[in-house]
């Protein structure tokens, strides 16, 4: 049993309904880190994110008998996490604009519209390497060295406006580049859901 391969969600769900711990552990290992990173989008605190994702998994286990056989585990987990995150935000009554925005729109977004970290990371390197070098440098200073735009402007001796323009350009470029990749993911996900 332990080494049995669960090839897709349909099998995993079927196994879960039969109380398979192995299926549960497999799902857990596949999605846990990804979902915690995903939750970080709404909640900036790591341990809260971890609690939320753990709670989502516990609910998956608790509700395993009620799962429809065509459930997409991925979508189910994402929507559970979204709802739990939303509850948490309401509970915290955090009034930061950053979170407020997600607060209002988070529910209207379908789980399939989100990409998880591991699904994106593969496509990144190629996309990043295609960026103009000055644009890439600006992006990396912001994201990897966590510099503020004003600090980047100082360091590169350019205006803040130029920094903003480059960041914008970088995001747009990556966005367009990843579209192809993303549609591929959609096909895979839809195919899985059909099984």
């Amino acid at each position, binding site marked *: 049993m332990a080494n049995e391969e669960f090839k897709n969600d349909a099998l995993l769900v079927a196994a879960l309904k039969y109380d398979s711990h192995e299926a549960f552990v497999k799902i857990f290992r596949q999605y846990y880190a990804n979902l915690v*990173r995903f939750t970080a989008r709404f909640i900036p605190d790591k341990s809260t994110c971890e609690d939320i994702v753990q709670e989502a998994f516990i609910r998956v286990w608790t509700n395993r008998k009620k799962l429809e056989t065509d459930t997409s585990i991925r979508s189910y987990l994402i929507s559970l996490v979204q709802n739990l995150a939303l509850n948490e935000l309401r509970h915290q009554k955090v009034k930061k*604009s950053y979170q407020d925005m997600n607060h209002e729109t988070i529910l209207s977004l379908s789980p399939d519209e989100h990409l998880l970290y591991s699904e*994106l990371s593969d496509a*990144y390197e190629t996309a990043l390497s295609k960026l103009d070098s000055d644009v890439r440098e600006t992006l990396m200073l912001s994201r990897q060295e966590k510099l503020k735009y004003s600090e980047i402007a100082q360091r590169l001796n350019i205006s803040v406006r130029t920094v*903003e323009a480059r960041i914008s350009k970088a*995001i747009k470029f990556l966005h367009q580049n990843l579209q192809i990749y993303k549609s591929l993911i959609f096909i895979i996900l839809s195919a899985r859901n059909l099984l």
Partner: protein
Amino acid sequence: MNHIGKDNPNINIIIARYFGGDATPDEIAWLRDWIEQSPKNKKDFFEQQDIWEALLPSFDVTDNDTEKAERRVLAKAGIKPRSSGLVKKLIVFWSKIAAVAILPLLAITVYFLVRPGNTPESYVTLSTDYGCTSKAALPDGTVVWLNANSSLEYSRNITDNTRDVNLRGEAYFSVKADAANPFVVNTPYISVTATGTEFNVNAYDSDASVTLSEGKVEATGAGKRVALLPGEHLAILDGHATVSKGVDLDRYCAWRNGVLIFENDSIHTICRRLEQIYNVSFDIDPALAGQTFRFILKGENLSEIMNLFELTAPVTCVSSGNLTDAVNSRQTIRIKRI
């Protein structure tokens, strides 16, 4: 630096400023309106945010985090530890509340102390440190599993003479069959004579015991000589020998697979067992006397065991020092009822 022009605000710049944390409240309000204007805007925004976030996750999630979380979730969901082979499906219970999971990996370190000598009568000592177990084949073909904090001494010429070994601590023997040449395990409290069998000897202190899994042995302890059959367990308690029949062998022998099983054992029994294996002593709250616990441990270190204990029982465990130092210096753990 207001980018909301009267007629044509640059949405891309505003998004960039928003991601960078530089957007003004006006700009955020405008961005929010823009997002709500159409499903496409919303999709675009969130996709860009996905990209932005993925470039720098707010924090890292390590394998260690995932492992810890897995144990917590399995415990909370009441999922039994993965069972295998001989080990029965057991679940950690305290008053039917919680369960505990096991570490998938069992860390066993092996520690040998071999004393070589030149004389034909030289002896070999095999010993293990706290928290470690080891397995060895003796020259006569007998296989020995040595539990933590134990030592076994045998002659290099074990095949020629009577097969005598001296044990301190705990060992499981799978004795190579040789009817003409009995295999004898000597301990300060108990001795066992076998010809070709499998049995466990626990002789950490005067409350020693012998458990037979296969074949037949003769055990001597507390002035009694007893022939044991498979599934029988001879225990010396306060100087009195008692034999139990049909015992659960895993309870006494599964340690060699890295598993410790406690079933309706008192906290004193459990702690005494942990004291044998780990370099630790316990100070137990008298209020916990009479409580019994069921759980299995599989390769957890001391601090993990204490965490599991706190998780599943209404107790707090306070250690005198850093539990990871327990190999070097003996630690005391106080267990108090909450």
